[in-house]
């Protein structure tokens, strides 16, 4: 799901893309989903899209 969102914004410049992804996650995702994503990123989950990973830092 998070990767799907990242793919939609991948055409934007990096800063804009990560900001847009983070905004989307804040607007529509339940906190426990965002926390799960943070944990996956912290654990170095290789399935997480790099753009999504970087966006997570802006949550």
């Amino acid at each position, binding site marked *: *799901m998070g990767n*799907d*969102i990242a793919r939609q914004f*991948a055409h934007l410049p990096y800063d804009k893309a990560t900001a847009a992804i983070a905004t989307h996650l804040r*607007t*529509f995702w*339940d*906190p*426990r*989903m965002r926390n799960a994503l943070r944990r996956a990123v912290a654990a170095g989950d290789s399935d997480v899209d790099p753009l999504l990973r970087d966006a997570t830092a802006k949550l």
Partner: protein
Amino acid sequence: MTYVPEADLGTPAGRGTETVRVTVDGRTVEVSAGTSVMRAAGEAGINVPKLCATDSLEAFGSCRMCLVEVDGVRGTPASCTTPCTDGMVVTTQSDELGRLRRGVMELYLTDHPADCAGCARGNCEMQALAATVGVAEVRYPRREPARQHASYDETNPYFAYDPAACIVCSRCVRACAETQGTFALTVAGRGLESAISPGGTDFLSSECVSCGACVQACPTSALTEKSVIDLGMPTRAVDTTCAYCGVGCSFRAEVQGQGDGTRVVRMIPSKTGGANEGHSCVKGRFAYGYAHHPDRQLHPLVRDSIDDEWRVVTWEEAIAKVASGFKAIQDEYGIGAIGGISSSRCTNEEVYVVQQMVRAGFGNNNVDTCARVCHSPTGYGLKQTFGTSAGTQDFASVADADVILLIGANPTDAHPVFASRMKRRLREGARLIVADPRRIDLVRSPHVQAAYHLPLQPGSNVAFVNAMANVAVTEGLYDAAFLRERCENVDGYLAFIADPQHSPESVEPITGVPAATLREAARLYASARNSAIYYGLGVTEHSQGSTMVMGMANLAMVTGNIGRRGVGVNPLRGQNNVQGSCDMGSFPHELPGYRHISGDDVRAIYEQRWGRVLDPEPGLRIPNMFDAALTGTFRGVYIQGEDLAQSDPNTQHVQAALRAMDLVVVQDLFLNETARLAHVFLPGTSFLEKDGTFTNAERRINRVRPVFPPRQGKDEWQITCEIAQAMGYPMRYENAAEIMDEIAATTPTFAGVSFAALDAEGSMQWPVTAAAPHGTPTMHVGGFVRGKGLLVETVYVPTTERSNRRYPLILTTGRILTQYNVGSQTRRTDNNAWHLEDILEIHPADAEMRGISTGDLVQLSSRVGSTTLRARVSSRMPPGVVYTTFHHPVTGANVVTTENSDWATNCPEYKVTAVQVGVANARGETDLEAERRRAGVEYAHTP
């Protein structure tokens, strides 16, 4: 209460903008130019005798009963075909007119049975009219036209055709043509041999779609509802709203008896209904019997484990079990471990209190609605681009469209009453572009021929709509002035969309549509005076559903097709109250009126009224609830009127999630597939028992009025309130009107709405505000709700669900005319006469390759599951794509659909599932198990 039929003024209202004054029998009346003398007389309270005229049809002028005298005019013209002119003086009663009418009536009576059952019953006008015009006896010998000996046709489950009672006035033939647009009926033969014929066969075998327009138009008892034959005529009527699709037709429920003893005799579409203007479809008109089906559950049921038998309990015990169970879960697992799901088949008032219970009573925002699986991308896409989550037009607007772009929708099956409006406009000359993998009926049907059928490859919508906009921009067909004045991100979007990667030639390999054809279609759309987009779930139920909605909004803005009649972007909503349930704050991130939960000012409105502090963070959506259930953080759910286990994708995943929960509460009419996994069943009410409002796809708020009291003893909003109260949150309303008053007080777009206002106006389209006290048929006139319309760069991102060697076909799913969604209502009616099982449609080449013939049992498999169903080889499918419906739990079509969903909203990608199809020798074990279960659940446990 005395039964009074709706008035029939004989011919439609005049369409002129200017008015004329005429005097009829000494009474002066002002009517719009073009109004017939017959109608003007009717508006003056004078009833001119008629047989071939009715106000739902254009004047025909054949029966000669409606003759009148006009000062200065020779002879006695037919009042139905004579338009009013200013200063006209009309006489409807004179000795000469009486003599002429009696003569005509006598001739009609020579053909009409003297012992007509309809005349005795009261649904045949002949004897009453004879008395009105003064015919006591007929001077001529009785004739026996051939139709007097023709077969009585009762093949249609809902109405009978008695040729002997027919006077061949052609009202039924014209209703089928003008009102419904099916052209199934004709007058066969000449003179005494003439008779109404459904195409040389019986009604059930004919092209008839059973909309009921012919029955409604018939002035005799030749076409009569079987319910009227069985029960007799109604004794009272209640104005209410249909509970099937998002057209939201207004009906008169015509009934006998009072209170619990009420029997519905028939449902008659209201001429004054803003959505339907007197028309109906087979579901709304006839398929209401489920409300009294023996499967209906009328008592609360509980059990400790889903493996236990149900136990009938009192309401108090059931509600206490729900409240204590939910509180225990929250005590152990936290506030966010429970949630609620509301239904688009419930009223605005019912879904409003569900989100209130969750937000204020449960203390979290884990509330969602079944719009999640249909039009949630519409909400997202139109909010982003236009500023509000709703269609832009009223249905009547289509009458001003010159080009109609229909994308991913099949209105003749799924929104039939709107389809009739659309077909009427197409017969007048509007051009139609159909973008759909299947050759739906509107591509070519009687008197309708689409200018273009673009059979898109499933999953290529965004590439398609971008190409349409690319042509408009690169060929200079865009509206530069509109963009400059009304939109933002204009330069960025124009540069994006003009890129050759979006050209029809570039996307041809993706869409499968020849570039030249797409170019021509784009030119047609972009060049017309008024072009309108109508769309359905073929747009939203994709991994890029939200992007596609924004793409369509882009296309409409680029070509200036927003903000007036005849244009716009119009979602055809699946269920009667999808719009309303979304309006009422049923999404976890939004309070009523589409205001985000993080807004301090908005939360403060509700915190003050509800007396609780609200969580500013969004809650879980339905698919998130399932995922969280499987990880153990979500353990209890209240499900109001949605059969998740049948309607949601990847059935095994849904079932596993429900099994993982400690407390599943289902509130519904029937013990459905989801109830099989529930611990508490709370019986709900049908639309015939509800008091409230529905909001249809054109934002029209219609009253739903109770025809009889709740059969299980409680209103559904009351059940929700009692659960909240039992959990310690004081939530009380005296009645549904009070709930609407709160909605109006807290939601700016509903500010002027109340039951009293709706009763006075008939219906209102939101926004209903001080500036628009009667509602807003067309949105974004002069400016968008968000200020300027936002042009979004809609990049095409292919779905990850693709055909491959193992699953080489793409499955897409949809609805059929006679059944409705999971079928829990329509399967319990005689609509099964048309559709008893789900069928897999497959292209002849794909079928031949697999040795499949029509009628064969086939196995349908995807990477998540398989099922068996019967096949129909159909050239309306493109090669590589198969199609089925999801109306029958035995089929379990969602056993094969996957977890893929729209990136923005989680709306499931029902329209793209990679599958394989092969001949099956027998029903699969999954199906047999489902069949066994269903038999057990639905019948064995009926208390």
